[in-house]
């Protein structure tokens, strides 16, 4: 619970208060805690951190650049009769966004990288999230890993069979992979229903407190 609040708190502060300096501090504290205290190597942390930055880069540039008939920009180029450039305000906006994003994402990472799902589930139970939702969370979480492992293995096998050389092969292989996974969903479903029966399942996946 404490860890949960500790991650969700700063996340809310980052987005709700949205102060440049607070956000910078949140980012450094969270990054420090995740990498040093929770002992996650810095290089790995950095690698995960840059995953969503493609989106950030594209969106930031989009926000940054404006088009106008008159040159109101602090920096611009003229193409035919239009000016394309950056205003002071958009620059300031973007700075705010980047800091907010860093603060928020470091908080979410802290939660994702250091808190086992079970602790999160316990919190959700405490705040009275409906049971069905919690059950689905628990089941989906478990099955994600089953299918990830399978997808990984199938992918390797296809790669060994030259399945990812060129477009045509890749498309065929990915579609086969997805179809195969889906067939395995159905097969698993059948045998799981049997297992559930023998485990005296009565319609609810109960979870302890």
């Amino acid at each position, binding site marked *: 619970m404490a860890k949960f609040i500790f991650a969700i708190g700063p996340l809310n502060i980052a987005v709700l208060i949205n102060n440049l300096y607070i956000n910078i501090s949140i980012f450094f504290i969270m990054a420090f805690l995740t990498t040093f205290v929770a002992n996650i190597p810095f290089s790995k942390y950095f690698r995960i951190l840059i995953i969503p930055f493609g989106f950030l880069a594209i969106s930031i540039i989009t926000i940054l650049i*404006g088009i106008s008939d008159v040159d109101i920009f602090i920096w611009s180029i003229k193409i035919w009769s239009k000016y394309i450039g950056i205003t002071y305000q958009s620059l300031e906006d973007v700075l705010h966004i980047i800091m907010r994003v860093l603060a928020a994402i470091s908080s979410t990472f802290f939660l994702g990288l250091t808190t086992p799902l079970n602790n999160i589930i316990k919190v959700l139970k405490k705040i009275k999230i409906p049971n069905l939702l919690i059950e689905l969370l628990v089941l989906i979480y478990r099955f994600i890993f089953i299918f990830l492992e399978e997808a990984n293995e199938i992918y390797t096998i296809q790669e060994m069979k030259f399945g990812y050389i060129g477009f045509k092969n890749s498309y065929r292989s990915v579609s086969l992979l997805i179809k195969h996974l889906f067939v395995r969903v159905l097969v698993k479903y059948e045998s799981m229903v049997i297992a559930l029966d023998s485990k005296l399942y009565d319609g609810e996946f109960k979870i302890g407190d």
Partner: protein
Amino acid sequence: MKNKKTVLLSIALLLVITPEVVHAMHIMEGFLPAKWAILWSAVTIPFFIIGIKKVSTILKEDTNKKVLLGLAGGFVFVLSALKIPSVTGSSSHPTGVGLGAILFGPTTMTVIGIIVLLFQALLLAHGGLTTLGANGFSMAVAGPFVSYFIYRILKKKNVNMTFTVFFAACIGNLITYVVTAFQLALAFPDPISGFLGSLGKFLTVFAVTQIPLAIVEGLLTSIIYNLLAEY
């Protein structure tokens, strides 16, 4: 200590099949200002609640279906973590929105989709908790419903099945992108040309990657659909 290691290990596993390029249209954590984050959550929550209600009536008839929903969730998650080659030479992911809606129905996809988005935020750093509402609306509400309705309408009119599935998945993907651009434009209107100018900018910028991807998604979904029909 052990747990941190293991969570990290899971991330490592995910990175093997997760790719160098961004997850197409997930609005990243913290990107939306508070006002918009809250607003989009408020828009999405009713759909989610209706979804849950509908799902639970289905489950009352057959409680075993709960496992099927769980399996479907795991499947959709993995689907969205897969890497597919895209026309631009880099790779991208299928969103699975269309395929999921056709296989499991749109309301189910709303519920599963939002849970999957939550896990994507926590495990993959795709999307985020504060943007869950906005992403949920575009990917788990708008996309699946549009895909599903196109699928139903064309199916009723006896249009060629391969094309039906292609079109449903393709448009479902495009709708997701349009809605996201809309959300971004609302939150970040252009200081000069306002909301419309901003919408134009976002639509143009993301069109470069999204239109080819929508076509890819459509093609892929129709191939998979045919493979499954064969099975």
